[in-house]
């Protein structure tokens, strides 16, 4: 599609959601396998171009050259029916934050401050970097000049690591047809950080685990995951708290084990076990602590329906309980999709986009409460 000034492009997103006046990202669509527990699946491949310094060591000109090369190839090689490219160094902060909240770029990529490196001049904040995103589905995003030259990411709703891996690998092949990757037979795909070397692949699943949180068994899951060399993180990845009872589980090691083996471990063994654990915990709450559970769920709904000011974290936590109530059939006038979508819409950049203007902290709290009340109105 050709962009004309009289034909303004839609904001990044899938089908417009008329109620929000805003597009819905697909991975939050509450569909796919085990969607009562699994929110989304994601596969990310780290790749670098042969013969170029890694991003943090590269001069501005070298970064610009890599960006140009990657952008030209990505945009012309028919990687997806429609691709949107965003030059992040030229786009306003709110746009970048929108992409972070939609999990299409990392926080680091939005900020653009590379890790300071000794012997390299401290880089300006706005170093050349970008992202390609498949639209309208937003399943694919390719970050250019993040920590590695290229980071190819596929994200899908529900438990779908296999589909993500297959798609990401196909995109990887298309990119490689035109660009020379840095690769060594011994260490595999060479990455800026040696912790990603090998397959360069990070597989992660975002899980909604409210019942395990209530019963306290979540700590056992975390310990077990750590023992299996898996990382457990929050909604926004590294260093983020598990707000909204959302946890991301991902592989830590990338060398010595083929992609398919990592996939089988996670998708066929580990994740189904966690899912089962959460389901059992939910059933137990229903049979043994029903009134207490109902109390929590209905209080959460009541609070969301009547609050006049609310912060993002509090909203996420209450929405988690509402979603649990919906999935368990305790609440029938709200659907799970609406609850999970609100997880996204209550985030600052989305909220401001929905409202259509910049808001200070206090007004965000007010508008957030209004948006939630509107969307969770009883019938």
């Amino acid at each position, binding site marked *: 599609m050709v962009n004309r000034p009289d034909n303004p492009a839609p904001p990044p997103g899938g089908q417009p959601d008329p109620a929000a006046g805003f597009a819905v990202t697909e991975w939050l669509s509450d569909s796919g396998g085990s969607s009562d527990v699994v929110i989304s699946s994601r596969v990310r491949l780290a790749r670098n171009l042969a013969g170029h310094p890694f991003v943090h060591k590269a001069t501005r000109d070298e970064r610009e050259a890599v960006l140009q090369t990657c952008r030209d190839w990505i945009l012309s090689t028919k990687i997806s029916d429609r691709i949107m490219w965003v030059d992040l160094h030229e786009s306003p902060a709110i746009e970048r934050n929108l992409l972070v909240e939609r999990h299409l770029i990392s926080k680091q990529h939005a900020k653009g401050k590379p890790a300071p490196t000794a012997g390299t001049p401290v880089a300006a904040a706005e170093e050349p970097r970008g992202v390609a995103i498949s639209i309208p589905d937003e399943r694919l995003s390719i970050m250019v000049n993040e920590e590695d030259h290229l980071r190819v990411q596929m994200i899908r709703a529900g438990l779908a690591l296999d589909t993500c891996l297959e798609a990401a690998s196909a995109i990887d092949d298309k990119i490689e047809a035109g660009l020379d990757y840095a690769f*060594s037979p011994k260490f595999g795909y060479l990455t800026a950080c040696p912790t990603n070397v090998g397959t360069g692949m990070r597989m992660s699943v975002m899980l909604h685990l409210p019942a395990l949180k209530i019963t306290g068994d979540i700590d056992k899951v975390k310990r077990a995951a750590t023992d299996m060399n898996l990382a457990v993180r929050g909604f926004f990845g590294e260093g983020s708290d598990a707000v909204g009872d959302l946890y991301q589980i991902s592989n830590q090691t990338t060398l010595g084990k083929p992609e398919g083996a990592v996939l089988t471990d996670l998708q066929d063994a580990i994740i189904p076990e966690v899912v089962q654990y959460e389901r059992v915990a939910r059933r137990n709450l229903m049979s043994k602590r029903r009134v207490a559970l109902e109390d929590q769920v209905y209080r959460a709904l009541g609070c969301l329906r009547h609050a006049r000011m609310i912060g993002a974290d509090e909203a996420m936590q209450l929405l988690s309980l509402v979603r649990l109530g919906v999935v368990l059939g305790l609440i029938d006038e709200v659907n799970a999709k609406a609850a999970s979508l609100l997880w996204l819409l209550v985030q600052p950049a989305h909220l401001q986009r929905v409202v259509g203007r910049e808001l200070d902290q206090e007004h965000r709290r007010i508008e957030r409460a209004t948006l939630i009340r509107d969307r969770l109105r009883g019938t």
Partner: protein
Amino acid sequence: MKCDRCDNDATVHEVTVRNGVKVEKHLCEACAAGEGIAGASLGELLTKFMTQEAEVGAKPKQVHKPRVAACPGCGFTFDQFRQAGLLGCPACYKAFETLLTPLIERAHEGATQHAGKVPKRIAARAAGREEEAATEAALARAQIRERQERLKVLQRQLDEAVRGEQYELAARLRDQIRKVDITIIPKPKGVQERSEP
């Protein structure tokens, strides 16, 4: 002086006094890296190694700069890598292989050899089909360039048609552009205008 554990020169010398007994260690850089980091989480493990922080209950540690040449690809030294936590370029892996290997081994549950996907071009090269792979890539690139050129011309004509208010022509050109099998990025709201490459 040789390393206590291998045949490399010892560059790290450590003297600890434990319960009144003096313990001396003379290690090479690689073996020293392996000391005192077992059992730490991956994140800790790396930062610890890279910043050379002593472990809890810090022991006096005297570190001599390793005599490892800088990477011929980018000029990065191993010390710089340790400060940055990131390597300078792909060639660093070769240049620092001996020092890196034990670190990589620890970060990846003991693995030091890649298993899994291999880039098609490299697989073809290994199978002696290098030319075939190179030709394919060159062809693909040529095709893309051609389409890009064609598109640029059409776009220019379209701009002129619009400027000249020749709307019928503009509509035809727009159709043609759509037919050229290439995607032009729509400009999302708020993303600044930039010229197409």
